[in-house]
């Protein structure tokens, strides 16, 4: 306890300062997450600018952006279980940003396929996308993220009501599953890495099923 806290006015000032510091810390932590999430994309761009993208820049870019999409989807889905386990409510401050990064890298993934592999050729791209099941599934995953990104602002949450908003944002579970399956299907023979992602998403989605089933049981008991 410091001397300042001995007077009521001093204590209020300390509380104010403490809450200002807390807000400041959260703002700073968000900045750290924002910058770190941008680093892989920035480095990929840097490598392009310096001709360090290896023998097959197209495959490298498509693969890297795809991996980043899955990583950020996993991080987004990790927030809720991690908060429940640790009790750290401040983790929620990062969830929206992580989700938006998943969308950002997902769009970059599609654009690198469309631009670098298909040379912005719309009819080739459509032809390919219809002909290949793994592209249909991947596109579905990405498309389902569009409404989520579009309603990721406070204003949208207020307009929709948090219940509706939450229901809509459960679509991310479908996106995660689609992303993992898309990765599995697109891999030629060494399926180990896709299986790792399938395992991670199975745990993250399984956790929600368990929580939901637990809630159901409670509701049934209460009704009886």
């Amino acid at each position, binding site marked *: *306890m*410091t*001397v300042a806290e*001995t007077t009521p006015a001093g204590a209020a000032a300390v509380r104010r300062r403490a809450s200002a510091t807390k807000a400041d810390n959260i703002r*700073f932590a968000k*900045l*750290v997450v924002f*910058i*770190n999430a941008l*680093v*892989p994309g920035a*480095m*990929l761009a840097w*490598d392009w600018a310096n*001709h*360090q993208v*290896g*023998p*097959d*820049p*197209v*495959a*490298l870019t498509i693969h*890297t952006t795809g991996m980043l999409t899955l990583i950020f989807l996993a991080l987004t889905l990790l927030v809720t279980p991690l908060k429940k386990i640790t009790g750290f409510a401040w983790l929620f401050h990062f969830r929206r940003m992580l989700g938006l990064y998943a969308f950002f890298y997902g769009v970059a993934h599609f654009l690198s396929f469309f631009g670098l*592999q298909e*040379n912005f050729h719309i009819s080739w791209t459509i032809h*390919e996308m219809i*002909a*290949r099941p*793994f592209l249909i599934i991947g596109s579905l995953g990405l498309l389902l993220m569009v409404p989520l990104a579009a309603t990721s602002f406070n204003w949208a949450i207020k307009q929709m009501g948090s219940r509706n908003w939450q229901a809509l944002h459960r679509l991310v579970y479908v996106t995660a599953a689609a992303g993992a399956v898309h990765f599995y*299907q*697109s891999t*030629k*023979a*060494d399926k*180990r890495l896709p299986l790792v992602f399938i395992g991670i998403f199975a745990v993250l989605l399984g956790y929600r099923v368990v929580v939901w089933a637990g809630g159901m049981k409670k509701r049934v008991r209460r009704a009886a």
Partner: protein
Amino acid sequence: MADVPKIPSSEITPEGVYMNRRTFMKAGILAGTAAATGLAYRAFNHPPLAPVKAAPLAGVVAASGPADSGFWTTEPRTPFETITHYNNFYEFSTGKQEVAEAAAGFRTEGWKVEVGGLVSKPRTFDLDDLKKISPPEERVYRMRCVEAWSMVIPWAGFSVSKVLEKVAPLGSAKFVAFQTLMDPQRFPGQRDRVLNWPYVEGLRMDEAMHPLAMLATGLYGRELPAQDGAPVRLVVPWKYGFKGIKSIVKITLVEEEPPTSWNEYSAEEYGFYANVNPNHDHPRWSQATERRFGPGGSYKEQPTLMFNGYEEQVAGMYAGMDLDVNF
């Protein structure tokens, strides 16, 4: 409140200094975490490592034959760096850009190639015997991978037929089966059953006897680097790259179509013939175009040619065959 310790005013950090220290710490955290993330990214996506050292190959002669022989092309060559750092060689690694590093210490001393089966003079060749079969001939072939990328590669070696003639095939021999070394000590990738090891491949007898079908022992006038299939590999330029089995230890002439690794892995994706065919798509991607790796790290999407541009030389062998069924 009497026990509140008195802090000498000299020990109280002035607010300005305190704020500066905070700013400094924040900058440190930001830079530190960003650097760590950057290093993690680099661990996965790093630029190619040191250039490959390969000894010059003695006595290489230019391929003879007119332009329509298929033995050479004037198309721009893919750089040595690309050919040696972008390899499908699962015995070392399933990452194309990881193979060079994994193959760096591979040694081929005492290598032997056993040629037998339906032949009247079975024989085991060591590397010196192979060199005596024919002076290495430089042939510039297009290489079309089933993954829809392609290269132009100056190989050195000789026609498969030269080896087969040495062992006098019997009339009953209809196919030639090839096998890669099985040695998980030297091929760490063989510890993981991604494919059913050892890698095996096969050709029909007439395909194996075609002058374009080649056993390569060199690349760009140098000894064949390990990542490209040292010491001896098959090159069949009108077929997808996976037919070009690497690090061969056994060649067996047989009566029935032999099993082949990728066909065993997934028969609807990879056929026994695996002739380059822009009209027969892989189930997961189109084979109509290919990404050609050119000089200076350039790449270009271009149409894929029937039989990889060797139609004139090889189409006769497949006359009357439905290439959509026998893909």
